[in-house]
């Protein structure tokens, strides 16, 4: 079953160099979704934020739900790539690039949303700290500024993390492609040769990136959660939000990754690379995150109920029993009740099973974000300020455009580079040597050669590999 290097390269570069009609159809559909979003956003900028469903007191709803949702999805790449790299788990090799791509694109979409949700979006650059003629700097006490720095760092880090392993694959594509593609990959590969020094430096850099990106990812979603936790309003002012959101992010990220893997497997014919065992491993991860998510949700709700604070209880009951009850229980079904048997029972933890579980989880996690934001805003402290919220077509279109943008970016990316890291896969396929070689020192005088030494001395055995 082991594939040769030639086969690997051929299989993985084939979808990059050739496209079928299904691909163009997908690009067309997702492109139209994005265009619809552009139209909706222009409409919103022209007429004002009133075209949304927001009102007094619900000032954040679909916009911030989508923001937190996409930032959450972006935690897929980190967990799989970075943690599994550090843990030296071999099964990660076919999965790392699609995970890292999800991170970068989801993060980009998540970064655009705060710009689009502003009352005066054309002034978004006031959030950027630069010496301005207005004699003012932004307010670093605001969680939104922490968001700015966190997302900037994470986006930079994950783009680098995505791009570094692409360099050798781009070099392969450069040598195996023709015409305009050759020039494109020559540029993308930065003139990569593949000598041992370059490989060593690349692997060291990736090791550092893997170590660095994990705390950044944890901090990003913690900071996003602090957009809510730093306010004194009922059921937002909770210390559990940091870990709760990080857990939810990894949870939704892994689910999104499974969906992406399944789609890639089907449409790029990667059946021999993304095998059922990979989905089995991911399914176990997803199960762990599902239980962890339930633990955090339960802990938060129990402390609220037990504490019986008047203002918090009005928000609590609105989610559990009153107008948000259908959404709340749908969320629990989607995040725990359906996925649990599918992921816990080995017979069901197949590709189909994990895909069904992931689909419900993605929906459930979107609902979870919505239920964190809107019930609190609808029921703040003073009953006279309670309200209701309904989305309008503009918000729904923008949400759909987000998904379209994700699909479009992913489709375009799959044409640019192979979705599975070829060199990493090869390195994993090849067996490690039993004897660890030691480099022979360069002999400027050639004395040992003249003495007839042809081979390096026998070396220490290194059976740990």
């Amino acid at each position, binding site marked *: 079953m082991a594939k*040769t290097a*030639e086969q690997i390269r051929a299989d993985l570069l084939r979808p990059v160099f050739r496209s079928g009609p299904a691909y163009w159809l997908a690009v067309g559909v997702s492109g139209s979704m994005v265009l619809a979003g552009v139209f909706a956003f222009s409409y919103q900028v022209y007429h004002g934020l009133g075209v949304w469903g927001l009102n007094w007191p619900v000032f954040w709803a679909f916009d911030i739900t989508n923001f937190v949702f996409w930032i959450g999805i972006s935690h897929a790449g980190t967990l799989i790539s970075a943690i599994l790299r550090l843990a030296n788990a071999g099964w990660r090799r076919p999965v790392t690039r699609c995970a890292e791509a999800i991170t970068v694109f989801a993060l980009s979409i998540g970064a655009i949303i705060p710009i689009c949700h502003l009352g005066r979006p054309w002034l978004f650059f006031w959030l950027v700290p630069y010496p301005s003629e207005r*004699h*003012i*700097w932004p*307010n*670093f*006490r605001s969680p939104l*500024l*922490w968001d700015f*720095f966190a997302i900037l*760092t994470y986006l930079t880090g994950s783009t*680098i993390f995505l791009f*570094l392993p692409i360099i050798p694959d781009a070099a392969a594509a450069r*040598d*195996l492609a023709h015409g305009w593609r050759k020039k494109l990959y020559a540029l993308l590969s*930065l*003139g990569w*040769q*593949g*000598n*041992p*020094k*370059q*490989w*060593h*430096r*690349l*692997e*060291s*850099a990736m090791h*550092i*990136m893997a170590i*660095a990106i994990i705390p*950044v990812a944890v*901090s990003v979603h913690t*900071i996003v959660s602090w957009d809510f936790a730093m306010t004194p309003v009922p059921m937002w002012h909770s210390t559990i939000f940091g870990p709760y959101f990080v857990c939810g992010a990894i949870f939704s990220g892994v689910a999104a990754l499974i969906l992406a893997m399944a789609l890639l497997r089907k449409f790029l014919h990667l059946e021999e690379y993304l095998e059922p065992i990979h989905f089995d491993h991911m399914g176990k991860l997803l199960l762990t995150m599902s239980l962890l998510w339930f633990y955090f949700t339960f802990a938060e709700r129990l402390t609220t109920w037990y504490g019986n604070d008047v203002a918090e209880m009005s928000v609590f009951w609105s989610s559990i029993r009153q107008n948000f009850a259908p959404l709340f229980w749908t969320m629990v079904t989607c995040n725990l009740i359906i996925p649990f048997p599918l992921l816990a029972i080995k017979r069901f933890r197949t590709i189909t099973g994990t895909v069904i579980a992931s689909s419900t989880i993605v929906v459930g996690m979107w609902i979870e974000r919505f239920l964190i934001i809107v019930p609190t805003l609808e029921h703040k402290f003073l009953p006279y300020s309670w309200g209701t919220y309904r989305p309008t077509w503009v918000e729904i279109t923008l949400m759909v455009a987000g998904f379209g943008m994700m699909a479009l970016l992913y489709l375009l990316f799959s044409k640019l580079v192979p979705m599975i890291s070829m*060199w*990493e896969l*090869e*390195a994993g396929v*090849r067996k*490690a*040597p039993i004897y660890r*070689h*030691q*480099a*022979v*020192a*360069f*002999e400027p005088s*050639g*004395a*040992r*050669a003249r003495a007839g*030494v*042809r*081979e*390096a001395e026998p070396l220490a055995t290194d059976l740990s*590999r």
Partner: protein
Amino acid sequence: MKALYALYSDPDAAQRAVNALRLSGGSLGIGERQIVVVTAEPFDGYDFSDEHSRTRIFLLASLGGVVGALFGLWFTRFTQLAYPLPTGGMPVVTSWTNGIIIYELTMLGAIATTLITLLITAGLPHFGEQLSDPEIWHGKILVGVTNPPDRARLELESQLRQAGAAEVKTA
């Protein structure tokens, strides 16, 4: 660029070739830098190069982080004191919240330094000619010598063949 090289399917053979070249290289009039090994994947466990584990990238990344932290410390404090505007009963310079931004800038400093160090030490981007062969993408290892002196050609060829190469090519 003139070069003489061979392609090996077996990494042990490639290792023998590299060792032979290193042992005899000086006497044949080639410098250490002229011995080139090109692979399509990192062959961990084999040492085709002398300078395997000495790298300062970890230290530099940490230094980059420190620089980022110091910048963050200065930046948040300086801007908060430059146009002091009190909010919410908090002090003008809020250390705890500044700490968050300092942390992010630390990580950004470490990440950026890592990238820059990588690019510099790996010699990227590289625009000139360099020795390579498309066969390496099919799993072969290229071991060769760039700009070999003419008098040494035969000897080098025989060393490459002795290690196990099927054919020796020129570029």
